[in-house]
């Protein structure tokens, strides 16, 4: 490795800690306007959707909508269905990861 791992880790720690800490420190001691609170109630869904969609629709870095090339698409649909009907995080994860593994290893 060419770079110094310790400086890298320290830098990563700082830019990770500040966005986690500052809003909570500043906002928790005052009353948040209702408008802001209402807006923030949509944040969790938005973040998770963005994280998921921007991952599963890309295969080797390219936008790929063909489920026979992009092996993540069908397992994702399965995971979502299982999560909806079972409400279980663990069962959903097992179904998702197992079905993706099958897709990858059988091809």
């Amino acid at each position, binding site marked *: *490795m*060419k*770079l110094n791992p*310790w*400086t*890298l*880790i320290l*830098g*990563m720690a700082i*830019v*990770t*800690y500040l*966005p*986690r*800490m*500052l*809003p*909570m*420190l500043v*906002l*928790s001691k005052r009353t*948040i306007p209702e408008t802001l*609170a209402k*807006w*923030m*109630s*949509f*944040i*969790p*869904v*938005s*973040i*998770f*959707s*963005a*994280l*998921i*969609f*921007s*991952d*599963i*629709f*890309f295969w080797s870095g390219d*936008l790929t909508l063909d489920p026979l090339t992009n092996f*993540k698409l069908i*397992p*994702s649909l399965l*995971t979502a269905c299982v*999560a*909806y009907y079972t*409400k279980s*995080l*663990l069962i*959903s*994860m097992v*179904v*998702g*990861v197992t079905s*993706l593994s099958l897709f*990858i290893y059988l091809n």
Partner: protein
Amino acid sequence: MKRKDWQEGFKIIFPVMLGYIPLGLACGMLLYDSGFSISAILLMSLIVFAGAAQFMAASMVVIGSTAPTIILMVFFLNIRHLLMSSSLSGFFKKSSIPFILLFSHTLADEAYAINYNQFKNHKWTDYQALATNVLAYLTWIVSTTVGGFIGSALTIDITIMNYVLIAMFIALLINQLVSKLFVVVGLVAGLLSVGLMELLHHNIALVIAAILASLFGYLVDKTSEEKKSKEALL
């Protein structure tokens, strides 16, 4: 912190802990392969504690990126925590500043979703939330370090390892879809993130998509409430 806080936290975070084991092992193996020593992996998990960022650091070191570039990318990837930290802040009005300083260090996507849901729909205290976070944190530290020890002795498909995280996110998302509007907001965020990602080829796309979609949700909600109150007046 009482024993009960840990028990309550454990009950709710247990599936995430199980998910963190393969994820952490993969991350540790990847970091070791890219040249980090085991003590560096341990320190990184201790003071950074950000799965996606640690995965990214490993792959960027391999392609020869410099430290400032990696740190900048990690920062962009972590901007989403600004939103999470803001949205949890209302539940910590009575917490002390040292508590918040400690709690926020252990804030991560999975435990965030679980704690948010608990605060919203159940009786949940700041100490239970901290116990939940710390259990996930410890699992992550141990599994990434063990992953470092295993090192390159084993090769597992990285797409599958990464997908453990995504499958967990999918299940967490489905549980948050409590009304039609949330489904629509989720779809808007998802489509925007794909479009912006294709356009910008950068993780900042996620942050922009999340901000726009939540604003959209807010506006739709506000319009329908105004309509309702007008109808009530008539």
